[in-house]
């Protein structure tokens, strides 16, 4: 074995873009053109089979959109996505159904992911029914999935409704639901952000364990590098719809190459009362996906920006196992 990047690619995204057209009624009245939100704007990303990759960045940078594109829950405005060698845009019929079973999403808010009126048993049966799994297999599959997420004695939970479970238990049910169809690939979108810190640990442990046991290929979406570190060997940092850095998580924490990654590392909350209170090395203001700056998209908040940053978009520079998109490095 020669590291996690070795092996066969499962997912290959090539120059993928997702532009949303948003027009307010008001702007239409005054004859304005509808705005274009560049949620994802030219992302290339390859995931090897069994690899687990963190997708990191601020609110609105396009993480969820990227996840939905990879699962074909959205159709890209440009670019191509291959899953196991096949272009997912071309899938239909039985091929699409097979893909839907193999690629699953674990949603952010367990309280919204499950219908409050359905029992846990019904919530777990639904994907099995939709996928046309013979009824005789249901009980076995449900039991196995519940065992994987460490909800021992499933009988105890199956008859309950979502509000009768704790947040941590609920998020495990949501995870079990994503595992019922033996997926190869899962996208977990901030699966612990709605949970109390005290129960996050349990859910993260389960995610890590399940991934390893099943050899899943996974994307873990978060804005908190401490969480990503805990489940992913590799991290991809996004800013305003683009990748700015990609590489091994530990190296990124020790020595962040991109100025934005540096700010993200410095912003990670820590329980240490003696931590630094130095101001974050990043300008204020929210990135605006309707109006991204020319050149490097981070330049208006970058403490190290120079002339070239406004003129050209940085191209990828390889440094060992890492890739960075910044004029300071290339």
């Amino acid at each position, binding site marked *: 074995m020669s590291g996690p990047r070795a092996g066969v690619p499962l997912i290959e995204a090539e120059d993928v873009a997702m532009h949303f057209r948003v027009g307010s009624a008001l702007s239409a009245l005054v004859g304005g053109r509808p705005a274009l939100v560049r949620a994802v704007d030219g992302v290339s990303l390859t995931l090897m089979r069994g690899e687990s990759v963190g997708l990191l960045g601020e609110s609105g940078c396009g993480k969820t959109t990227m996840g939905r594109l990879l699962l074909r829950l959205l159709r890209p405005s440009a670019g191509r996505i291959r899953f196991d060698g096949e272009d997912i845009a071309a899938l239909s019929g039985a091929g699409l159904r097979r893909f839907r079973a193999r690629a699953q999403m674990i949603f952010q808010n367990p309280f919204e992911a499950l219908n409050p009126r359905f029992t846990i048993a019904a919530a777990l049966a639904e994907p099995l029914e939709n996928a046309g799994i013979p009824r005789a297999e249901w009980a076995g599959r449900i039991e196995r999935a519940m065992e994987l997420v460490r909800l021992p004695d499933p009988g105890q939970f199956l008859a309950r409704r979502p509000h009768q479970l704790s947040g941590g238990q609920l998020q495990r049910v949501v995870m079990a639901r994503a595992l019922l169809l033996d997926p190869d690939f899962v996208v977990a979108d901030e699966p612990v952000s709605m949970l109390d810190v005290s129960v996050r640990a349990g859910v993260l442990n389960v995610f890590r364990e399940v991934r390893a046991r099943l050899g899943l290929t996974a994307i873990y979406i978060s804005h908190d590098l401490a969480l990503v570190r805990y489940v992913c060997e590799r991290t991809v940092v996004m800013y305003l719809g683009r990748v700015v850095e990609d590489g091994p998580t530990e190296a990124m924490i020790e020595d962040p190459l991109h100025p934005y990654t540096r700010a993200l590392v410095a912003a990670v909350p*820590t*329980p240490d009362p003696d931590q630094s209170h130095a101001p974050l090395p990043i300008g204020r203001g929210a990135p605006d996906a309707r109006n991204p700056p020319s050149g490097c998209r981070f330049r208006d908040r970058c403490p190290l920006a120079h002339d070239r940053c406004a003129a050209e978009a940085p191209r990828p520079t390889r440094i060992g196992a890492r890739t960075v998109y910044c004029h300071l490095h290339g």
Partner: protein
Amino acid sequence: MTETILDIRDLAIAYRVAQGEMRAVDGASLAVPAGTITGLVGESGCGKTTLARALTRVMPGNARLAGGQALFAGRDLMTLPEAEMNRLRWREIAFVPQSAMNSLDPVYRVGTQLREVLVGRGGMDRRRARARAEELFGMVGIEPRRLGDYPHQFSGGMRQRVAIALALALGPRLVIADEPVTALDVIVQRQILDQLLELQKGLGLSVILVTHDISVVAYVCDRVAVMYAGQVVEAGDVRTVLTRPAHPYTMGLCNAFPHLDGARGVLTPIEGAPPDLLAPPPGCRFAPRCPFAVDACRRQAPPVQAIGGTHLAACHRIAEAEALRARAARVETWAAMAETVA
């Protein structure tokens, strides 16, 4: 010794619910020194919001004071006539509600909402109110020209800044902020906390900061009170409580936290869930989840005891805290509880 601006003694708040009466806060005590930030930390449902709201006496209809006092500069907020309490709100004690950023009225410009407090509550004339509104926006780091915007034109972080500006409008001495950075991403969270620290120092404010996140406590608080099932189980200065916790629950909280330093080991959850407050267990409320519980813990409620200085904890095994800390640092100690609480 610094002056105590707020002294909460044995406070109990009960909610009337279908199955009976539930004490969401049940004998909580806490002293808030003036000019400091005191953190109130604990997991969801432990009574943080209930306690914080009780201090403003704006409580849901089914809530009632079931005992105790809250002395603000010597006067008991719990028994103050409503008219006097009303005079204290905003002017002396201000409250930033949980998810304040979603509580701004979407149909009014933020400047209008700010002026309403300044004119309606503070009795300022329009001119002074306008100048004060601009000053407040400057204080929380938003361009004053954006006073004319509607809440939806602001990001979550900016709306949280507006909520802080609202609380500061009439120059209160005590600010109670309920989860002011929960649900914000790490960069915005840090920027809001920096702003809060700067304002607190500059204005000499006393702040009670409610959170479930001990890293927020570590970053901004001078003192901290740890709540569990309606009670304060440990309190002290932040450094002592976070580096030498004396209560097993605090030890567990510190363990469960993912961070960037040190080895990427296994995280250690506190197994199980907090007790049903309609029928709390006899004895120590943490006993069912505590790896160190002995018979006495299941029979008798542990009293709050001083450990040294202002460090307090309510645990029967307080004398053994150091040895328990060593055991609490091991994953197996907590993993062993998984079977018991299931």
